[in-house]
């Protein structure tokens, strides 16, 4: 709107709106989101090759290099981020722990998206009664603190990785369900769905081939926000001692273990927490970029070649 303002010093020609920018050009326009995306790519690399590459170093006890502060390079670059009370390299441990931390979050979000999305499609398309039952169930889950739910389930079942994923997924299902249902209720009234029905398409065919492709992008957008939420939740559970159990490590567990050495070696608790925060922040920045790109009303902010920041969200 300010671009059209004649009284402003910016002339109309200098505002150069370029349509049809590819997605990576749009990403480059938003520097915050770009940095976030790059960080997530680095983390993905750590998840894929980290444990194979540094698994041995992460467990190697070196009593001569105990409690090294970050920045000490005499013991080699592995000790650049310091070491713990047994002389294990923090850097290697952080990279190895990234696999558990990020894969648990990713699987939970995927499970929640698949189950929540499917239930939402059914609730929106099939019958009123089925839909009502599903919605009331999701109301119950949503009005209940996720941590309490996790506490009960992990108390009764073992705190194993699968159970943790299931619990975290259950707490996130309602958000996908709601969005999917709301979209289906709108899409099912459109002409192309009527056409598919008139041509004799079965319910499953219409849902799968005509409605799902329209709903899916929205669900994928929620996934990036949820990824951050779930990672925080998993870290919290592991920190409390009811999530992942040693000898497995996650960042949340590393914070809990480092807490005992807080006054002697602050980095043991601080660095894993920082890793969690940077990963969640990257996911949040990326998701706010995706929201802008997907929103036709806001997309011009990126297409206008100005210094539009990634955090301008309305």
């Amino acid at each position, binding site marked *: 709107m300010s671009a059209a303002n004649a009284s402003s010093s910016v002339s109309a020609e200098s505002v150069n709106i370029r349509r049809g920018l590819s997605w990576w050009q749009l990403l480059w326009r938003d520097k915050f989101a770009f940095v976030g995306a790059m960080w997530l790519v680095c983390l993905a690399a750590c998840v894929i090759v980290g444990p194979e590459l540094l698994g041995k170093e992460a467990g190697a006890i070196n009593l001569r290099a105990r409690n090294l502060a970050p920045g000490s390079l005499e013991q080699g670059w592995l000790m650049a981020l310091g070491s713990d009370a047994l002389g294990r390299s923090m850097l290697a441990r952080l990279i190895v722990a990234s696999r558990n931390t990020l894969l648990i979050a990713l699987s939970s979000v995927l499970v929640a998206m698949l189950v929540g999305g499917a239930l939402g499609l059914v609730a929106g398309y099939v019958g009123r009664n089925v839909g009502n039952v599903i919605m*009331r169930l999701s*109301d*119950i889950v*949503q*009005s*209940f*603190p*996720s*941590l*309490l739910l996790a*506490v*009960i*389930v*992990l*108390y*009764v*079942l073992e705190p194993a990785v699968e159970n943790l994923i299931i619990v975290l997924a259950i707490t996130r299902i309602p958000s996908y369900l709601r969005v999917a249902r709301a979209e289906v209720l709108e899409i099912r009234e459109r002409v192309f769905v009527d056409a598919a029905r008139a041509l004799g398409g079965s319910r499953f065919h219409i849902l799968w081939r005509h409605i799902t492709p329209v709903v899916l992008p929205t669900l994928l957008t929620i996934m990036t926000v949820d990824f*951050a939420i779930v990672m*925080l*939740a998993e*870290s*919290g559970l592991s*920190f*409390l*001692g*009811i999530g992942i159990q040693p000898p497995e490590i996650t960042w*949340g567990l590393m*914070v809990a273990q480092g*807490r005992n050495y*807080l*006054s002697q070696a*602050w980095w043991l*608790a*601080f660095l*894993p*927490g*920082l890793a*969690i*925060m940077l990963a*969640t*922040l990257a996911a*949040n*920045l990326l998701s*706010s970029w995706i929201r802008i790109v997907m929103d036709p009303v806001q997309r011009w902010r990126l297409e206008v070649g100005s210094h539009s*920041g990634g*955090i*301008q*969200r*309305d």
Partner: protein
Amino acid sequence: MLSYLSRRIALSAVALIGLVVAVFFLARLTGDPTNLFLPIDASLETRKEFAQKHGFDRPVSEQFSRFVQQVATGDLGYSMRKQRPALELVRDAYPTTLKLAGVTLTLAIVLAVIVGAVAAYRPGGLFDRIGSVSSLAAASAPDFWVAISAILLFSVTLGWFPTSGLGDFPYWVMPVIVLMLRPFGLLVQVVRASMLDALASAYVKTARAKGVRERRVVFVHALRNACLSVVTVAGDLAVGLINGAVIVETVFGWPGIGKLMIDAVIQRDFPTVQAAVLVTATAIFILNIVIDLLYVTLDPRVRHQ
């Protein structure tokens, strides 16, 4: 309206009954319930005696009707670890958590309304950008990590505040701020968005055209309506606050419901876990109904429907 409210209460009641049933069957899911109710180091004699006393050797249907009777009369079992009725433990822990949550929520709402309103006044301005970044950072920071980093910096290094425990003002500063981060971050965004809507609306234009002073337009005309959105998310906030309280109470050693629950889980004290969960769930369902009522009183459009 009355029919809506009664439907809401009925749904909550159904949900609560569902929860009670779920707790009962979850406790039997793992096979021998004595494993859940007794500490892991209990002797074989204790187990047998316990199973007999609580009827775990009877058929499940009989156990269930007995369990329902007990819950209905407020008997939620006996904490083996603390040698006290579980409900009593929960009752003693609640005031601490309620005080913590109350202070935090009040502060978060007041601050978020001010920050959100000022940020929305000049969208894209400096204050708006700083507010957006910091609210995003507040929402991304793991609360337990912020808590122990704060202890390290302000208690261990600087010695400004005590590390943990319950007491007068200095003991409250860090727990309240840590617990406030996430609700504050969420609320700033909500208030900002609805304030943007309100400032663009016709009644704000009318007020300005009438010559009402700008400060009054923003803080009375627009803000009053923007505040409705705070009530809308209050339920989610309260639910999130309980998650946060578990962490904050554990880190700062506050004897509230969150710490009680985590301690009970770690010591494998099932009656206490069960009592804490049931009481908290009841409180949340009641709170949601109160929020609905509040919304009706505040918004004339809903009231007249």
